[in-house]
């Protein structure tokens, strides 16, 4: 564990309890949420904080996720600091509202506990829910561990509300694997979190200055729509610097330094795996074992998926010989999972670039053990040795034939 800059407590709790704790420490003005496995324990835990007066948040027990996001939009436009949380079908039901939240530039923070999308209905982890919402104008942060899920929640507030960002943020962690397993991690003092997130006062709102009334959500025809979408692109592209500024400020407070992504043993690597979420832990373990056998392998663990750090990724991977990208969601009907397709595209204009292969793994909570990571690394080594040419088709790991 890194050197801590401020007094912190070591706790043993689930990722979801950590997220609920972060919400408690933030004490948002409004929370509107609807339960769904595996997110449920977050909203239950938060309901306990409300019921016991630990927070004085206005907690809206909405009748659906569509209304959860609708109420969050209303509350955020009103001028409040707003949070929510969901998974899978809940996120799918919010879909219409997601792009309204971002286009209205409302800094709503949502913990998304990744779960496979129906059908068939399933409750376990994959990333198809948030990946399905990747083009909605939200910032997407992924956590590997409960520590990261807790930390990202706190940082998400500052990123979202920054005057040059004003965008909603989704903070992801893996359903059950991270959400329900008890983990050991460090938590900040309530007072430190309160100070870090600061007070929120939006420039425009429904409630703070009714004498200068604002209309939110007007009808924009072809003469105006396009420019508003351009503003969204400019905002999310520009948010990369703010994400890093907040991340660095957080490191000063907590001693935990994150980046847009983490490079693990990448410096002298010939081959590498790109992955996000909890599987990064397994990948690190396999890399250490294979390094001991002399295989020069490393990992790029993505933390910020939106805005996609294409330039930085290209720089980090261009000198490698072969890269395998692992997606815990499939984008059927095209080349492979979203992380693969975008990573490959990011490298296309580099003078030097690695051979690339796409892998889909762990759909619907299928266990992803070290053997699958070893398979990927083995494949990549074969490509480097010229024994195999890079595969065009995506490989489905761990699927029964």
């Amino acid at each position, binding site marked *: 564990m890194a050197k801590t800059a401020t007094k912190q407590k070591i706790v043993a709790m689930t990722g979801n309890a950590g997220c609920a704790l972060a919400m408690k420490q933030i004490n948002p003005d409004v929370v509107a949420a609807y339960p769904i496995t595996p997110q449920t324990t977050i909203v239950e835990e938060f309901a306990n904080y409300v019921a016991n007066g630990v927070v004085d948040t206005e907690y809206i027990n909405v009748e659906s996720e569509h209304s959860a996001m*609708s109420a969050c939009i209303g509350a955020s436009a009103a001028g409040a600091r707003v949070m929510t949380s969901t998974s899978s079908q809940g996120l799918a039901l919010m879909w219409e509202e997601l792009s309204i939240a971002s286009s209205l530039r409302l800094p709503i923070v949502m913990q998304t506990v990744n779960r496979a999308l129906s059908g068939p209905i399933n409750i376990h982890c994959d990333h198809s829910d948030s990946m399905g919402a990747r083009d909605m104008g939200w910032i997407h942060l992924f956590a590997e561990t409960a520590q990261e899920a807790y930390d990202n929640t706190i940082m998400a507030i500052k990123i979202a509300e920054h005057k040059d960002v004003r965008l909603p943020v989704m903070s992801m962690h893996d359903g059950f694997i991270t959400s329900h397993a008890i983990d050991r991690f460090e938590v900040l003092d309530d007072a430190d979190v309160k100070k870090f997130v600061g007070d929120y006062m939006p420039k425009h709102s429904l409630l703070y200055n009714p004498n200068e009334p*604002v209309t939110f959500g007007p009808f924009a025809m072809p003469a105006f729509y396009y420019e508003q979408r351009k503003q969204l692109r400019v905002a999310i592209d520009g948010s990369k610097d703010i994400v890093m500024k907040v991340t660095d400020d957080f490191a000063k407070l907590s001693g935990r330094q994150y980046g847009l992504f983490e490079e693990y043993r990448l410096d002298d690597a010939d081959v590498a795996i790109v992955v996000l979420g909890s599987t990064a832990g397994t990948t690190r373990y396999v890399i250490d074992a294979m390094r001991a056998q002399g295989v020069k392998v490393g990992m790029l663990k993505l933390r910020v998926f939106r805005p996609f750090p294409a330039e930085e990724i290209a720089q980090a991977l261009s000198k490698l010989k072969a890269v395998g990208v692992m997606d815990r969601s499939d984008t059927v009907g095209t080349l492979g999972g979203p992380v693969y397709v975008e990573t490959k595209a990011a490298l296309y204009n580099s003078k030097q670039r690695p051979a690339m292969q796409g892998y889909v793994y762990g759909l619907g909570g299928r266990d992803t053990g070290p053997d699958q990571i070893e398979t990927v690394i083995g494949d990549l080594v074969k490509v480097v040795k010229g024994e195999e040419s890079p595969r065009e088709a995506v490989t489905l790991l761990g699927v029964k034939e």
Partner: protein
Amino acid sequence: MATIKELSRKPELLTGGHRLCAGCGASIAVRQVLLGANDQVIAGSATGCLEVSTTPYPFSAWKIPFIHNAFENSAATMSGVEAAYQSLVRRGKIEKKMKFVAFGGDGGTYDIGLQSLSGAMERGHDMVYVCYDNGAYMNTGIQRSGSTPFGAATTTSPAGKVRPGKPQQRKDLTQIMAAHDIPYVAQASISHWKDLVKKAEKAFSVDGPAFINVMAPCPRGWRTPNEMTIEISKIAVQTGFWPLYEVEDGEWKLNFKPKELKPITDFLKPQGRFRHLFKPGNEHLLETAQAEIDKNWSRLKKRCGVE
């Protein structure tokens, strides 16, 4: 209640120059409702004629803070605004007294937004929900809704060779809202402005949720002359198509009691959307329409304790 003179001195919160059609009932409904507010009001609307016509970017006809989110969630959106208000007041960040009103058309209320409305009312937010009912999805070109009357020709229930317009009767939304047992529910019409403004005043003054269903004709969809809007609203009331009543803390009260209802044909005849009902051979359809009115009227009178 304020006198007409006092009302006339109140500032217009929905200004002129919006793009609703001449003779549209929606803006009349909104202006009468807003006359009933005595505190700062925050308004919202569902997608529909009212919203698109009052907020063509970069313009807005709303002289009060206003939010449009989407079609089915005007109630949920306003419940978020109201919750934010409660929170910010409790935290000492806002002091001013404010009231909240969400508008929705019949499509956005009876149909796609019913769940969102029911949820918001059940949760008890201190807000008013107003449905401006013009009996179809007008904004998208006059498609049928759960509020479209029996027999009406719309673009998705056209009067054809084998189907004479909408085959189903209307959904009674006002009674559904009364069943939520909220502090105040009312049905009103723009033709009876005094009654409507009074109802709006009551709705704004109760502590908790209130619902008003307002008859707000659409000359385009009803195929009536622009200048007939108020008159046809009045006929809707006189024929018992649109009874005026209120449910205050569970007490049902009929606000308009004619000795005898005018025949429903008085309401149907002037409207182009019912023209086919008057063709020879369709007499039974007119009888069905009248029978439905009679049944509903006698049930409502019983509920209101009127003989």
